[in-house]
């Protein structure tokens, strides 16, 4: 994923990174349409300034920033999201295209992860960011990003084991 694009081929670039971006935006929203609004605003803003996606950390930081602004703009939504994050992370559902029951169970397990771990997992697995880029995008250290990733995998492994 070289992610080098000129001004004209934003479509091919977005086709490549769009699903991952949308999944990342879904971390803060409950509906796909809200996530698409966030991705649209972030991508257009980023592309207008850079005309290429060679700094992926900055792109994802832009998505995150706009998502947080989006939540702040609607106070009722913010209260609801805060309650959701505090009580049960499972209600924030990243959308996956699963093919069988095993994948369905895996998707459900991902949705049950704590928010900070799921955030790192989404960036690492479905957006192919390095720990350095994840650290830049989320404003955390690389060690924190790596440890959250390991915790996420461990929690997934644990939740998928037969009782």
């Amino acid at each position, binding site marked *: 994923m070289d992610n080098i694009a000129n001004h004209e081929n934003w*479509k091919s670039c977005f086709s490549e990174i*769009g699903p991952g971006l*949308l*999944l990342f935006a879904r971390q803060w929203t409950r509906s796909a349409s809200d996530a698409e609004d966030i991705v*649209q605003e972030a991508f*257009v803003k980023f592309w*207008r300034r850079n005309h290429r996606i060679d700094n992926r950390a900055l792109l994802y930081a832009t998505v995150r920033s706009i998502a947080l602004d989006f939540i702040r703009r609607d106070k009722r939504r913010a209260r609801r999201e805060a309650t959701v994050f505090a009580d049960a992370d499972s209600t924030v559902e990243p959308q996956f295209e699963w093919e069988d029951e095993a994948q369905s169970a895996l998707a459900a397990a991902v949705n049950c992860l704590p928010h900070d771990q799921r955030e790192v997992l989404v960036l690492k697995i479905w957006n192919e960011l390095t720990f350095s880029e994840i650290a830049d995008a989320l404003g955390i250290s690389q060690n924190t990003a790596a440890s959250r990733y390991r915790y996420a995998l461990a929690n997934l492994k644990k939740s998928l084991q037969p009782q």
Partner: protein
Amino acid sequence: MNDFPELENELRALRPARPSPVLFERIEEAMVENCRTSAAADAGWLAKWFRRFAEWSRGDASDIDGQLVRARERGRASQTPYRFGIGLAAAAAAVVLLLARINTDQTRNEDKEIAQVAPASETRPVVPALSGGRDVDRSMSSNKFIPAGATQVVYNTRNEGLQFADGSREPLRRLRYQTQQTWQWRNPSTGASLRVSYPSEEVVLIPVSGQ
């Protein structure tokens, strides 16, 4: 470091949902809109400057984002004429500078030329008919513009009601005149003409006599 290779492979096999085609269309529209907006911003800076100047001279204010906010009337009768006066003085200063620049080659012993305040004078030669050879020589060598006319067309008058000046009991009627002023200069030797036209606004307070 990687203790879960199988689990990672399973996760990678799980594909996130693709964006809807509508999102592509929306992004494309936003891209086009952004290009249009930035192009308009680049092309319209001069018009924007003139518009701001005109609005400032008639009492409007604008904020940082360029959104025009109507300034509140402050109740002072002299406020708008004061602003208008500054605007008019600036325009007059520009005209004077322009004339001074045009007439740099004018000598002291030249005949005094008088501006004619009449639209008809625009088509009438201001310099008298040349008869003597000396005058012909001077005319041929001259390269100067002389005032040829000035007009002020009132195209709108608005009665803004009565008001009281500070500390006065006599009512004043406030009339706002919107005009178009035009100044013109001609070069008799070449026939070239120069015309400056600009909108202006004037507020006049007329004392209302007792009945």
